[in-house]
């Protein structure tokens, strides 16, 4: 059986192991994050939410997923 290669990324400041070539869209789906309520940044670049199925996660990628919370 072929061994699944895993890579280390940073997600919202914390280390996480994901499958190599994992698409951002799948990450969002698997985390059950409501896509309409968030914005996503990959290595400090804001991603177009319509193109998430085209972007593959690479080793050491820094991903930030943000939303609105209460604030002054």
């Amino acid at each position, binding site marked *: 059986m072929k061994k699944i290669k895993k890579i280390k990324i940073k*997600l*919202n*400041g*914390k280390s996480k192991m994901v499958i190599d070539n994992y698409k951002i869209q799948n990450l969002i789906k698997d*985390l*059950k*994050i*409501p896509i*309409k*309520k*968030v*914005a*996503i*940044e990959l290595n*400090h670049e*804001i*991603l177009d*939410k319509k193109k998430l199925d085209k972007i593959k996660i690479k080793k050491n990628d820094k991903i*930030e*997923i*943000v*939303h*609105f*919370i*209460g*604030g*002054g």
Partner: protein
Amino acid sequence: MINNKLTIANKKFNSRLIVGTGKYKNMSECAKAINLSGAEIVTVAVRRVNISDKKKPLLMDYIDPKKITYLPNTAGCFNSREALRTLRLAREIGGWKLVKLEVLGDKKNLFPDMIETLKSTEVLSKEGFQVMVYCNDDPLMAKRLENSGAKAIMPLAAPIGSGLGIQNKINIQIIRAQTKLPLIIDAGLGQASDAVIAMELGCDGVLVNTAIAKAKKPFDMALAFKNAVVAGRQSYLSGRIEKLLMGQPSSPKKGII
């Protein structure tokens, strides 16, 4: 009442009270206070999604952005780079262009860093944002912000969360006289009478968070601020009497027995 709508960047609002959504005990208390305040605009912060605890209540589940205008704020940003990043992310969440810029310069007094604020206003305006700018009560800086494309000038009454009320009425009046942009007092109000004073100085609105959220009875205070803003506006438009040094009797002298 004439001219009773608040217009910001061509959008009209019935309420002149803007409220913050921070510092409440929980989301349902926040939502109820907002409802009682009558506010149609609320400030919100952009923060990381809690990946590990997805059961945490979401702001959008309590306050419907289709009914209440979300005003993304850069609270907690201490330079232009952070502020721009925050608001660009806010726009990506759902197309928000009307934003509040707040770039702080000092962690203790929370005064705005006006050089970073001015730089950010220029960049954001060029990028198509409609920027409401938190600023010092400095008429010259307010003019520069206006010339840089700001859509609303939001001078502080006093340091954020201090509850001290308007410290420099003269500066607020000078800013009022020089600008046609919406002038909204942001930060430092402590009680409803502070909002009355702001409105009587000719401001177009006030932004309140701590004074409501941290009041012993937040719901009653939300209502008090709602009424204060209406009373203050009405008083301003009614034209106050002249201030006199000496007394003037209210009853006619003629016919005194």
